[in-house]
């Protein structure tokens, strides 16, 4: 395969297609619109299903229906639109049907703006709707990762029959970078639980309704055990220069990527700084983080929000080391220099006090 210069939104769309997505339902919203627009012609070209829904609510419920047929299906949106999908997401998760949802996060709360942000971390990782469950959440930091994690998203969705959210931000959606697309995969066959007409078999029924507390609790336990499997097997993260680091920086997606530049610069200045960049936000790579927490003096969390993954980091390190936070909000993307300043100050304070 050759490398192409690809826009994040387009790359995700094409990756989904190569992963065998059979239907896309979506509603325009900046900064993910190009993904929808790409699907509009590409899916039609391939004779697959593309439909611009009347709203994000309709889109997620179309996804719900389409997913019930056993097909690989997808929708994408950005923060306000993602908020509108909460009820539908909760239904999907409760019904054990796989679905992939892209949240190309933008500045919030409210209408906010269309600039890159990570303000939906809580919403994507904690529940995405009412009731007890957590979606699998993947956080790409580059166009290539957007492709790779989109492919992974479909596999995980099918494997666990669970909702997978690709949580990126406007910068990743809008940016072009060289990247390599995987080969086209064949469409997956419909699984036995799919709704396709009860021909020669007992009816299949998909629902999230459990009138009685006992059956509802059993359904919840099923979800929880699925989640603990996911916690056990699916934690993923990348590291840079953590071997001898005194200060560990952590951040995901765009913030994590920019933090890498800052960490590299800090290393050039001789500071023993390392980076852990989670690829999965749920399951949060707590195992790896707690291993690293044993080694470093302190940890700095960088996010494009007011401090959300911060909770997961603090939970993972469990008070072992001081954890500090640096965040920009409302669509401001921190610059490498800015992070370098923050890192070196903190380094002097906590890791190598004079």
């Amino acid at each position, binding site marked *: 395969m050759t490398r192409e210069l690809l826009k994040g939104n387009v790359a995700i769309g094409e990756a989904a297609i190569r992963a065998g997505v*059979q*239907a896309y*339902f979506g509603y325009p919203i900046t900064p993910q619109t190009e993904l929808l627009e790409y699907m509009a012609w590409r899916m039609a070209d391939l004779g697959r*299903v593309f*439909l611009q*829904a*009347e*709203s994000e*609510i*309709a*889109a997620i*419920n*179309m*996804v*719900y*229906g*389409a*997913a*019930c*047929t056993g*097909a690989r*299906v997808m929708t994408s949106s950005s923060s306000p639109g993602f908020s509108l999908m909460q*009820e*539908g997401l909760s*239904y999907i998760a409760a*019904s054990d049907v796989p679905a992939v949802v892209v949240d190309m996060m933008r500045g919030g709360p409210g209408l906010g703006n269309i600039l890159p942000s990570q303000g939906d971390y809580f919403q994507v990782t904690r529940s995405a709707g009412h009731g007890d469950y957590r979606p699998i959440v993947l956080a790409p930091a580059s166009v290539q990762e957007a492709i790779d994690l989109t492919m992974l998203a479909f596999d995980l969705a099918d494997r666990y029959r669970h909702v997978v959210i690709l949580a990126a931000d406007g910068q990743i959606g809008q940016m072009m970078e060289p990247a390599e697309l995987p080969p086209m995969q064949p469409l997956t066959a419909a699984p036995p639980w799919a*709704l*396709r*007409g*009860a*021909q*020669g078999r007992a*009816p*299949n*029924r*998909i*629902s*999230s*309704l459990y009138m009685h507390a006992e059956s509802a609790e059993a359904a919840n336990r099923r979800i929880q055990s699925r989640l603990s499997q996911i916690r056990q097997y699916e934690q993923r993260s990348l590291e840079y220069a953590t071997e001898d680091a005194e200060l560990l920086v952590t951040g995901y997606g765009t913030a994590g990527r920019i933090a890498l530049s800052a960490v590299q610069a800090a290393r050039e200045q001789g500071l023993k700084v390392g980076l852990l960049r989670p690829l999965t936000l749920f399951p949060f790579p707590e195992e790896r983080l707690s291993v690293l927490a044993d080694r470093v003096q302190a940890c700095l969390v960088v996010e494009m929000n007011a401090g959300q993954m911060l909770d997961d980091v603090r939970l993972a390190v469990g008070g072992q080391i001081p954890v500090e936070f640096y965040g920009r909000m409302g669509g401001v993307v921190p610059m490498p220099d800015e992070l370098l300043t923050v890192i070196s100050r903190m380094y002097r304070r906590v890791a190598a006090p004079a």
Partner: protein
Amino acid sequence: MLQEITPVMLPVYERPAALAGVHTHYCPGCTHGIAHRLVAEALDELGLREQTIMVAPVGCAVFAYQYFEMDGCEAAHGRAPAMATGIKRLLPDRTVLTYQGDGDLASIGIAELIHAAARGEPFTTIFVNNAIYGMTGGQMSPESLEGQRTSSTPGGRDVQRTGFPLKVCELIAGLEGTAYVVRRSLHDVASIRKAKKAIVTALKVQQAGAGFSLVELLSTCPTNWGLTPADALTWVEEHMLPQYPVGDYKVSAAALRAAAG
């Protein structure tokens, strides 16, 4: 038993195969049960049971997906048309049905209904209009009649404050995507027969891919209306029918052909 079923007697009316054998939770005399039976009979008649997917609503018919002997699912409140769209787009040769109450379809779900209708999604909606929110205990629905006492309009529905009854068939018949939009009633035997015919026609329209089809059924809620089942039928006749006239609101040319064929 006053009469024995002698060997010479033949069954002329039996439980349709498309109905599951389970007990339903509907209240005594609730015509949801009749609507279910008619749908099942229609599917049986057309031999569609094994290729049908039913989308149940949130409302008293929330268990509908269990009450039919076929593939089914349970939509979020009001979103059955979106869910059905998702299914039908993936499986265009299957029969897809939504079954929705008036709160579900006309209140929270009106956007999804209108857009599915405007797109001409070729599935069939059975719209059970009992002019009230049955499941949640009898609140006003958009279909409640002027002056109707409900638990959220304790003084009777004041249309100046709470709005005017929303006439769904009339509202959507003008949309180009609709092929077959009719209203029937379940308040007496003759009406039930006509309702059945309409459901059969709607399914044929769907099979022909002629567009969106909807059969509205005027139905009872004895429990929340505070009436006996028999009085509830009379209430439909005396109060609902004048407001919601039965009739064919849209039969497109393609639908006509499909019905004939």
